[in-house]
């Protein structure tokens, strides 16, 4: 009865997850993970092939490393992309890119936690995963937009200040016509470069982010 309840709880979760026992063999492989990985629960149960959902070659998953208590290995396997949970003891989370999953690779965020019995002995461990590819792409877009702002909006301000200076110096009679010409030419070149930067950014964003809606794509493509 309890096992059936547990099976239902794991299966009804929309978050892909699996549970392994102390022997690293799969106890539960939920429906969300079946759909995500294409690997059926019936073929995974009782095996230690959980790595096949993420990697081409056999290697420990986050939950395998945690079960062995080799937390140092987490730092090596997920350098700079892991954290210890602030909510649950014996729980870790990590982020990694999987080039072999999906058409253009996939970013996954994992959590792994030990399961203990009433006496505190480890019975197994559970791992959940979340596809954060869209979030990572959004972060990349923000980085693009930040750079674009710095290299477009800000330089426009520089040109404005330069033109104000040129106007002031001209009014004060401190510049000869040739110098005014040189200064204005420089600002024209700056403006032309900003226009080119904008076009380059638009092109880069469109090329890198194929899921941009067509209406925006047309606008960005000029």
């Amino acid at each position, binding site marked *: 009865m309890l096992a059936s309840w547990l099976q239902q709880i794991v299966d009804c979760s929309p978050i892909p997850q699996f549970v392994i026992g102390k022997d690293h063999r799969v106890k539960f492989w939920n429906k969300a993970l079946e759909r995500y990985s294409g690997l059926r629960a019936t073929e995974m149960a009782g095996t230690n092939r959980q790595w096949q959902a993420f990697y081409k070659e056999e290697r420990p998953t986050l939950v395998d490393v945690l079960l062995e208590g080799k937390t140092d290995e987490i730092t090596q396997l997920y350098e700079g992309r892991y954290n210890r949970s602030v909510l649950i003891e014996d729980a870790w989370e990590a982020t990694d890119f999987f080039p072999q999953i999906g058409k253009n690779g996939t970013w996954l965020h994992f959590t792994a936690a030990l399961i203990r019995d009433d006496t505190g002995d480890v019975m197994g461990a559970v791992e959940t995963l979340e596809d954060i590819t869209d979030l990572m792409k959004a972060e990349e877009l923000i980085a693009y937009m930040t*750079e674009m702002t710095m290299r477009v909006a800000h330089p426009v301000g520089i040109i404005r200040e330069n033109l104000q200076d040129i106007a002031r110096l001209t009014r004060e009679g401190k510049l000869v016509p040739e110098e005014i010409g040189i200064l204005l030419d420089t600002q024209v070149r700056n403006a032309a470069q900003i226009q080119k930067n904008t076009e380059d950014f638009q092109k880069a964003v469109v090329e890198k982010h194929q899921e941009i809606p067509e209406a925006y794509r047309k606008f960005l493509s000029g």
Partner: protein
Amino acid sequence: MPTIVNADELAQKRIFLVLATPGSIRQCNIDLIRQITESGFHTIVITTNFPYSILVRLYAKQGIDSGKVSFIDAVTHNSVGSAKNIPGVVRFVNHPSDLTEMGIAVTEVLKELSGKKVCILYDSISTMLIYLSSSNISRFIHFVTNRLRLTDVSGIFLAVEKGLDPMLMTQLTTFVDTVIDTG
């Protein structure tokens, strides 16, 4: 005029990132050159905005001894096509984005002024952003700061406050000794 950098700091061959508001960056440039000159240093101005011929007159009108200032000018060639280098006074580079030529110019001018107490003033990182990506600017500033430390020369990088990519700003703060926000 508040002191932005003092003689002691320049004597320690320190490298600074000076941030100014868009409206005050030109005056900040002039104030810095006056303070560097009054501290007994020769200034090498790398200009990416105003040509040397105009700056030298503007400085003179502010009472700055032009004999104590040399220029690396990335504006004039691009505007008038050609201009001849004047050793110890001005060296022209073709374009603000030509970092190889700019790097060579820095090395050559430092050589010309060897034996003198020298401070380089780079005006400005913000204008460079029109022509170069943050990552290329970061690499170039890293190169220049290494060069300055090797040759035991003080340097000041001028930028408009809040005009830099946060990542670039973080990198620049690791290359320089002191960040001064004049805003």
